[in-house]
């Protein structure tokens, strides 16, 4: 009996750390809820990265100390946060003017499905989940670079990087990079196919191929 090679892959924190490698000094960045939020813990020392919260803030600080919690100061995930000396506040219309207007350099989002053409679905499962798109459709339409961080397969083991999305789309042909627990796929522009550019420790290209139905270049 052949012994299955135990794959390691990346943890949620390691996926976030990998996404943080795409940060550059001076970037303005919007992070989605879930694993993307963890990217904030991995900003390299000495690099100035300003985080935007779409409910109306630039310069998100760390979670507050217990006695500094302020109900008027929350992030887009409705978690209490703190401000920085460089922070600014603005209204929702101004916030999305920044986002749609192409002023945000990078966004990191979660996804339920990504297609080989860069379509992304992450806001509803018909008949099951109806939370809504929040700001995700605006982000994928307006931000310069879109990174998706997600598990490579669903809980049932179904591929999430697929030829065509089956769920209602959040955006069409918008994703630039996909970081999963197994690998990183990237495309230089929206006319090119995705290319497998990196494997997580202990993961083979063959395993990625087996767990992916999307077409991509190796």
């Amino acid at each position: 009996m052949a012994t299955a090679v135990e794959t390691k892959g990346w943890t949620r924190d390691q996926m976030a750390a990998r996404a943080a490698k795409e940060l550059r000094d001076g970037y303005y960045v919007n992070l989605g809820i879930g694993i993307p939020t963890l990217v904030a813990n991995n900003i390299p020392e000495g690099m100035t990265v300003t985080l935007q919260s779409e409910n109306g803030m630039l310069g998100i600080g760390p979670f507050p100390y217990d006695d500094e919690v302020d109900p008027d100061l929350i992030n887009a995930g409705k978690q209490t946060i703190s401000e920085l000396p460089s922070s600014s506040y603005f209204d929702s219309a101004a916030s999305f003017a920044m986002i749609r207007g192409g002023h945000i350099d990078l966004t990191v989002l979660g996804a339920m499905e990504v297609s080989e053409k860069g379509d992304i679905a992450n806001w509803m499962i018909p008949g099951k989940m109806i939370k809504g798109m929040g700001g995700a459709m605006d982000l994928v339409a307006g931000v310069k670079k879109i990174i998706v961080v997600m598990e490579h397969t669903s809980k049932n083991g179904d591929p999430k990087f697929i030829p065509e999305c089956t769920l209602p789309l959040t955006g069409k042909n918008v994703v630039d990079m996909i970081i999963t627990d197994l690998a990183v796929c990237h495309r230089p522009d929206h006319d090119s196919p995705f290319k497998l550019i990196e494997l997580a420790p202990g993961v083979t290209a063959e395993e990625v191929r087996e767990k992916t139905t999307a077409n991509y270049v190796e």
Partner: protein
Amino acid sequence: MQKIYPSAEAALEGLLFDGMTIAAGGFGLCGIPERLIDAIQASGVKNLTIASNNAGIDNEGLGKLLRTKQVKKMISSYVGENKEFERQYLAGELEVEFTPQGTLAERMRAGGAGIAGFYTKTGVGTVVAEGKETKEFDGETYVLERGIRADLSIVKGWKADESGNLIFRKTARNFNQPAATSGKICIAEVEEIVPIGSLDPDSIHLPSIYVKRMILGAPYDKKIEFRTVRQREAA
């Protein structure tokens, strides 16, 4: 002209009618006009269309109006964390126009600024754009979205002067600013009303022209949806 009213009920007098459209400020439970929501609930007005980013949570904020089934339709971007909402929607009792968050903010801003519609890239190629006009500009496709002109705006501010100039606080500004301009009439509830001349004119977020009526809503017991903290390192 006296803009200050003694209560939310008094401020709403003569403005409510069945089937009306209300634009409401707030993001989650942050910066929601809770006194006015309570008074609208007590009034029993029905068949409301409410434009608000969220629908409160069960029994908080706009969730109160959902529980009493006073709402016919929500125009919102995100309605998670609300079981009663989900139940009514899946049962077909509640209509929802899912609108991307930025599109919703801009629809309120545009409606209040005399802009009937605008083209945006947000939602192109998704269900949001279905049935709407699209147009190419510089080789890219945009979808036409309509401004929202509400019958009434309800917002929450931090400080107002007696003329109705308003200042918001931190991220409680959110949708309050665009919602305030979207209505034919705007009522603001605030935490503090100060004499004219006490606020620096350069620091006003919402000029008094938008605020037709206001009430002192304090004291507030502000709710937090997710209290997240860090630990102090031992000295």
